[in-house]
């Protein structure tokens, strides 16, 4: 026991070994020598991009047992060279946040509390409301008699945090729906 303690004493390694300043191998214990970073034990590493600002820093997402265990900068990127800022470095908390809302919440008109709703019911209710509002506010022509083929009853805000493919489907669906008040952060 005592001998183990002495051989594990970092000061001796510092004096005897090559690491005279005690900032490298001398400072390592048996335990720390055998520690493995989460990134080393990941089942897979997925290429991603930081979701915050528009610089577009590349991220590597480490996954083990179906859970994200770490998100780090990707050194291969010519944009970021592996760096992330405080926000990008906090991406793991963004995706694993305990306050994330993961079930549908519903507030009925004049209601005072949230209620639960299952996904299928909620989607049906939203589709019903789109169809109804669209029909009730449909406008073939404006007050000057110009053909407009649209609704001013339905609007949308958002897109700058989404994918190109998502923005594409949104604009396509809204346009076919006749909704024109489609906007995002670029105007704000």
């Amino acid at each position, binding site marked *: 026991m005592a001998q183990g303690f002495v051989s594990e004493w970092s000061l001796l390694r510092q004096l005897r070994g090559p690491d005279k300043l005690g900032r490298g191998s001398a400072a390592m214990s048996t335990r720390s020598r055998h520690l493995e970073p989460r990134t080393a034990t990941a089942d897979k590493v*997925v290429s*991603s*991009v*930081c979701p915050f*600002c*528009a610089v*577009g820093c*590349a991220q590597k*997402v480490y*996954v083990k047992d179906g*859970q994200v265990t770490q998100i780090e900068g*990707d050194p291969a990127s*010519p*944009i970021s060279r592996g760096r992330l800022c*405080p*926000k*990008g470095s*906090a*991406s793991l*908390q963004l*995706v694993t*946040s305990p*306050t*994330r*809302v993961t*079930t549908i*919440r*519903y*507030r*009925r*008109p004049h209601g005072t509390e949230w209620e639960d*709703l299952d996904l299928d019911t909620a989607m049906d209710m*939203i*589709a019903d*409301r789109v*169809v109804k*509002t669209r029909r009730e*506010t449909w406008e073939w022509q404006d007050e*000057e008699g110009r*053909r407009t*083929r649209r609704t001013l*009853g339905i*609007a*949308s*805000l*958002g*897109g700058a*945090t*989404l994918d*190109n*493919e998502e923005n*594409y489907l*949104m604009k396509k*669906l809204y346009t076919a729906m*006749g909704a*024109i*008040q489609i906007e995002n*952060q*670029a*105007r704000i």
Partner: protein
Amino acid sequence: MAEAHPVGFQWVMEAKRRGAKIIHVDPRFTRTSAVADLHVPIRAGSDIAFLGALVNYVLSNDLDFREYVTEYTNAASIIGEEFRDTEDLDGLFSGFDPEKGVYDGESWQYEGAPQSPAAGQRDPAQATGPQLGDRGSDEHGHGAARAEAAGSGGPSVSNTAERDRTLQHPRCVFQILKRHFARYTPEMVQQACGISPEQFLEVAEALTSNSGRERTSAICYAVGWTHHSVGSQIIRTASILQLLLGNIGRPGGGIMALRGHASIQGSTDIPTLFNILPGYLPMPHASEHLDLDSYVAGDAGSQGFWGNMRAYAVSLLKSYWGDAATAENDFCFDYLPRLTGDHSTYHTVKGQIEGRCKGYFLVGENPAVGSSNGKMQRLGLASLDWLVVRDLQMIESATFWKDGPEIETGELVTEDIGTEIFFMPAATHIEKAGSFTQTQRMLQWRDKAVDPPGDARSDLDFYYDLGNRIRKRLAGSSDEMDRPLLDMTWDYPLTEDGEPDGHAVLREINGTGPDGRALSGYTELKDDGSTACGCWIYCGVYADEVNQARRRKPHWEQDYVASEWGWVWPANRRILYNRASAAPDGTPWSERKKYVWWDADQQKWVGSDVPDFIVDRPPDFEPEDGARGPDAISGVDPFIMQTDGKGWLFAPAGVADGPMPAHYEPPESPVHNPLYGQQNNPARQHVEQAANPINPSYSEVFPYVFTSYRLTEHHTAGGMSRTLPYLSELQPGFFCEVSPRLARERGLEHMGWATIVTGRSAIEARVLVTDRMRSLRLGDRFVEQVGLPYHWGGNGLTTGDSPNDLVNLTLDPNVYIQDKVGTCDIRPGRRPRGERLTSYVEDYRRRADDAASADAVDAADAPTSGRADR
């Protein structure tokens, strides 16, 4: 830049290490200032005065890059005789209609430009400029963001304008510019911006000595420049400066817009914006665009690449409506809904309050905190029939009905709010596969790492499902209004996880040819319906049936251009207009700044990047008379998206508030405009609404300037940062920054509380007394500025009042973005609670209005009012 885009800033530091001089112009001293060679504190909202003086410095000292300016810009073009400058009209340009508050730009055109009814029709909803002619019938405020619609090039003009290459003609652009900017002197900069002549000259000398054949300078702005009622014109001034110095289209040059969201560039290119369709095609306008022919008439046949607009439009219609779109039915052009004016977000909110707009989707956006005039946003939300919120966290825009500021004051009562709300949890960036387009137009694909938890889904999944359910409900409908939904191509393959396959959507965006294969570039697009393409500028991102946005070749295996990482629109070009990196004869301007050049042996343009030019068109090529489209581009015209091929020092069309920038004060200002009798941008648009009152300028009741900005540790409205422990710990509370002088003047204590009040609302913040905010001396007076980081709201781990509640809605007439600068008062202590808050703000408003009325009476009595008062 170090604050808001820290990782991008590493390249500024690399440049500094190699000898570059870094100049930081900002009202506050930040982490950027700390490592810059020079910090230039400036009064918020005075940017045009500062940049205009740099333009004047270049012109009056003959420091422009003359060969570049003569050949590549419209400096030599001659403007018609009818044009009158702000010099002639004390701050107005010719063509202003004071009743409607809009310009008719007829008199701004090139001399001899034919009065083509077609000119500039790419977005005729713009109610100004020569392109509308007598069709400019839209009411005030109904332009449609023309400048943005020109995001991939300028509006149409004739390129047959007369030119005087000696630049001596009194009506050539160069001489007009000289006269226009002559009053922007260093002394005027001191008066308007609070910058000393010595410091101004240091900037001017650094910039001009670092531009020319051998050297280039870059201007970077985070999008604060856009947040002004003159925002487009601020950026125009920077463009003029960079064109005069030869800093566009060359390595190390340019104007870099550092945008704030992961795919805000993508959501502009493939827009979730009211005025454009994918690839900056305009949304059709009810007055002008009766069919496909009239829609493309303004551009079809004009010079430059917009001349092929019909091919881009038809290919988009084919990707939307597939087999249903045929030549016989005008490719379903009539299925597109039409604009009749300004349908931008702030007017939509007004429509919500007034009961016209009843259903609203919020998709990763939190307007109750992030949009200006928060009260108007929340009143709009409370007026809806239904609201769908898609987000990761319970944001303020989803909970306004139970805990918003208006619940506290009693202006809204929970039980009275009829809005039905669906909070639909969203997937994060790693729980879905897709592409972001970052701020330099680069698409980067992300693979999916894990499934989204619980009910959370991607927006791709949500909208595909919603579309399916809507179509199911309408199936069998014979109503013409339902045809666009029923005929739409809406059949995407699913991944093994049961979600729509993003690759397939990106491939549709890329486009396919007659053989069903992915196209490799937009020059392959046809106007006969044989090609489909969801966004013409993205054509090529799926070339060779490969997702080019997914390329990840490490930078150490490539040259510095790194062309094999991601994919940049258009055509994987990293620097736009890079023909300008070579001299007119096709040789590099210098060995040091070599980028793209003409190789006479190979008879083509070569270099480090994809040439932004017709690759085999020699420098001495002259188009035949009457040539159209790309055939009309001469061998020396680098700006191939412009119909005249030139960079515009003077905008003869397409800008709503003047062909050249002029300094106007923000709509709320403590000072008189030192440059002109015209105080504010005459074409600005104030959103008329009871909740949007404006403070009178020069008011002793609201004597200070406020402006808002970002912090490194938080993101926009806070939904993605105030909910995270690390970031909340790093910036744990809302604060305001004030100078020591202001703190003394108002008795504010460091770390104590302060109340900041405008005519819209009052908020409270912890006080940070700091030299980082300077007391600016403008002539014989000081102007104090209150700095407000705008990230806070009522939900999350760190909470606080929202500075956007203070901001009024006065919009730039080109792009409808608000002016974030306003006037305020600041007092020690916390703000009143409940109903007392409303009466507190009302009292301020009444006092300010009373004082302003009294001043108006005084001014009317005084024979020398106006400029003489200053």
